[in-house]
């Protein structure tokens, strides 16, 4: 043994050194590379499965992709054109005033009271039965005031339409219709934001349709999202209507909702 060591000392040290280096290289460099490769392989397989599933429904051709892209561009144009057409010009009084948050709340409260009185007076003059309240929440926080002002503007518009159309009665107004669903106020801007208001009213057939017609007037456009009409007594020209409208707010830079 001693003889071997004496004879091959340098050789053994060199080989051992080389081996140690190789082991360390394997553990520290190659191991990590292999792990990443396995992960990439798994990802690739799952993607492959997914794309195969999608491809099972068909694969678009280049031509169809071209047509689709054309459609998309046209739709963008139409959208750009529609936005001003379907805009609801919010009267100044319903615009968010440039004031401090606390004053903002007071402004809303005052406006609500004032508007309620105004509409009641107009309803009385127009022989229209009016509900005791506009259905707006009594307390709002500073963040929701701008939205509530918009909803109030819609209520004002609808009530005025009913009075002008000589309807007989407004049974009820729900200005927060849909607010608890996808219309919740969000700081993140969306491409399309809807503020829906629901109203139940009655009157002659022509009066009902005057209201619907008036709601879609350019400049104060409200999208009709829901409409039911019934005649409780077939012998009378009195109909009961349930109308849901939405104020549309388009932000070109906002996020599009997933289809």
């Amino acid at each position, binding site marked *: 043994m001693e003889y071997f060591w004496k004879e091959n000392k340098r050789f053994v040290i060199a080989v051992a050194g080389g081996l140690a280096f190789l082991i360390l290289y394997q553990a520290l460099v190659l191991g990590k590379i*292999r792990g990443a490769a396995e992960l990439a392989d798994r990802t690739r397989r799952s993607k492959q499965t997914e794309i195969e599933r999608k491809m099972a429904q068909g694969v678009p051709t280049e031509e169809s992709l071209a047509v689709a892209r054309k459609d998309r561009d046209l739709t963008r144009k139409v959208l750009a054109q529609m936005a001003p057409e379907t805009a609801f010009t919010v009267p100044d009084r319903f615009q968010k005033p440039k004031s401090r948050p606390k004053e903002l709340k007071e402004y809303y409260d005052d406006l609500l009271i004032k508007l309620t009185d105004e509409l009641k007076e107009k309803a009385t003059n127009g022989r229209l039965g009016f509900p005791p309240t506009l259905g707006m929440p009594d307390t709002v926080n500073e963040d929701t005031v701008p939205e509530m002002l918009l909803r109030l503007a819609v209520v004002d518009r609808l009530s005025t339409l009913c009075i002008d159309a000589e309807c007989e009665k407004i049974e009820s107004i729900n200005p927060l219709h849909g607010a608890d669903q996808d219309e919740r106020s969000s700081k993140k801007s969306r491409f399309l934001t809807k503020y829906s208001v629901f109203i139940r009213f009655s009157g*002659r057939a022509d009066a009902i349709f005057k209201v619907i017609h008036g709601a879609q007037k350019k400049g104060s*456009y409200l999208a009709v999202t829901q409409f039911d009409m019934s005649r409780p007594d077939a012998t009378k020209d009195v109909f009961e209507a349930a109308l849901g409208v939405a104020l549309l707010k388009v932000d070109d830079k906002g996020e599009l909702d997933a289809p």
Partner: protein
Amino acid sequence: MNFFKGLNKEQWTALGAAALSAFLLLFGFSSGGAAGGGALRAAAEEPYNAQKARYVELPNENFAIYWGKNPFRIESAVKLPIPTIKVPEPREEEMLAPLVRPHPAWENYNSLAAPVKYPTLSAGAPLIAEANLPAAAEVQELTKLEEPVVPSRPDRRAEKEREFAEVRPKNGAPYQALKVEDKDVVLIVTKKGGNKVRYAPGEITYDQNWTFEEKYKYESERVKPGAKEPEEHLKIAKGCLDNGMIPEAKEELKKAIELRKDYLEAILLLGQVAVDSSDFETAVATYRAGIEAGAPPGDLWFEIGRCLKMLSFNEGALVAFEKAVEAQPRLHRARIALARAQVDAGQGQAAVDGASDFFIKLGNAPDTTPAQRAEASLVRGLGYIRVGQLEKARADFADCLKVDTTNAEAMNGNGAALALLGEFPQAAPEFVKAIRANQYLTEAWTNLAALYLLGGKWAEAEQIAAAGSQRDPSSVEALLERGLAQLMAGNKDAPKMFDLAEKTGPTSLQVLMVTGLLRLREGQNEAALEKFVAALRRDFYFLPAYSAAAAAYLRTGRKLAEARDDVSARKADEMRVNAETLLRRIREFDPSRPGAHAALGCAYAAMQRPEEARESLRKANSLSQKGADPLVYYGLGYLDYYYGPGDPAANLAAARTQFDQAVKLEGTATDPFSLRVIDECKSVIDKIDLWDRTSLRLLETFDGPDAKNIGSNWLERHGNGIKITRAGGRGKFAGKQAVREFALTSLMHEVPGADFYSFEMTFMPEKVDRAEFGMSIFHTVQGSTHSGFSVGIDASGKPRYQANSSDNDLDVHDMAVGWQEIKTPLPNPKEITIRVTLTEAKNRARVFTIHFWDPAKADWVPAAPPVTVNPPKGAWQVGGWVHAPVNHEVLLFVDNVKVLDQAKR
């Protein structure tokens, strides 16, 4: 490099191996294959579905371009609500025919396989053909049967056995003398000439010429005390009875009983004497005293039973006969009497068993007489009838008649059994024979009268019943039959007879039923109900009372429902539930009765349970043996009418088919109820046809909040100071006639004239001092002038009409000229509802007819003779108007403007 120079061959080999290993390690060739991409599977091409072109199109600002014609216009011929029709009512309970007696218990009768059960009387529909009834001559003969003279026992105490005493001297010829006196030691004979001759006892024998009283006194005084003394007294008593000396007979019998308290013969005779004088109390006391004294109790209990029977105390009699049989099991008459009492008490099976036991134990006994066997057969026959075994009953009656050929009761029983079996032609002669055999058997008379009633021979029935009533004035059945005969013949005295029957037998089932039905016919539903309930309390199984009570409940319910308040509605529902319960009970008792199913169907229809109603009515139809019943078709039609599956038009069409079916029965269903139902069906068919052709062209009730605008589509003409507005749910004409005299203020509406049928309007004048108002149908237009038919109320409140009025005329002057006065007064001047109809008269001319609504009658009343017109068919104007002298205030409300169209046939 020195390093490599110093290496030997082995070292080079080892170094090469190490280098190779390092190379492999360095490039990862040590394990696993290289990650390779798998080829994607080929996929189909996905077509691109181009999106629909999107564009913005907001509605035009001008609403009018969209609203040229109101698609919801009220004038677009709305169908009227379907007319109300009557809920089906069960077949009116027909008058129940009198029972034949003896009769089965109702429970057994209900399950009897008889062809006719609970027969009823209906005029024109006799159940028995005239040929099957005894001829009128026989009826006359029967009614003229002379009543036998009741054998009386005259009091002969003053009579003499012979005029002169017969004296027979031992030594001499016999001779007649005026008197023979026995002075113990000497006999003094007073001869006819007045001479007296004395004889010693034994010299002569003689027969006295005493009166019976003298004889009795003599014999009574000379009864010698001793063992034979009671027999002596009994003998004297019998003699007294023969001579009608009842008090003396009683005295002697009492003496006999006093001497021998258990002397059965004397006790029985004393009891019989008391019974003969209707002194039942004494008789029973005598018998009871005898029993207590130790006399044989069998006979005495039997006699007590007889007494109680005669007093109609059946329960007591039954107990007495039971005691008699218990005390003396071989006492034939007691056994038979017990069975008889059981029949009378309604214990039919017990009677049959008792009589059968008699035949088993005593039938062949030497001391059983044929008469007793015959009577036992009779009693068993009666028992069999009671339990509903009619053929067995007939066999027993035949056995009885073999021995006792004149037994009226057996003949009557046989006739009753035949009648119950539906063999009416054979039954009648049996009743006649029974009457001839015993004219005091009232049952035979009433049974025969019942057959005549069933045969629709009211006069004969009354005669027979009257004859029965004559013989037994307390017979409720006879009185009832007389009343029924009178009722069916339309005699006004019938109620009196029923009153008499009610007084005689207030709890009689038949009386309760008949009087209840009469109350029901008079509309006294509650009183009728009381009767029927009382009848049901008397016999749980008496089915006619169930159906009649149900009818009364339904009618009461319908009356209550007419009140239209919640409490009445609830009560009405309760009544209907009660009716349904009763009718279901009938169905349970006898599921084969179609009438019960039909009535139940009617009840269910009233209770708004259409499916059950349909099922019951169809069942009634399938069970009916008399053919189709119009009531069933009416009921089915009613259900289709209100509860059909389709729209109103389809339902009414289906209902009409059913009503048509009923009308087709007009020739076959001839009873009054069926005819009434058929008439109702015709009326409903007319209503359906009318509804089918009629539609609502315009209805304005001015509902809604008060408004200056009266509403759309109205043509207003004002500007003379009087304004037309909507107030309080009415149209309001109010203001002062300011511009000129009688300038017209009108509210008109355009309607098409092609199918015009009627126009009605209500006026409520509040302040119309000297003002005139009314309604017009302007059917003609010339330039700007509209003219036509008008009805108005003038300044004095009188209604008038004008066939050729125009708005121009109405705009300038009042109604004084050219307006016809309507003579019919306004039913309510404060609320005047006028209707004008345009109809076709018989001569095909078209006429306007004015009607006023009469709230008291809840109907339209014609106000004036029809006015012939020939209006064009273009666009008409209808509406109301008012005008007044200048400076006069007007306040007039109008409401309920209705225009109906009617399509031509």
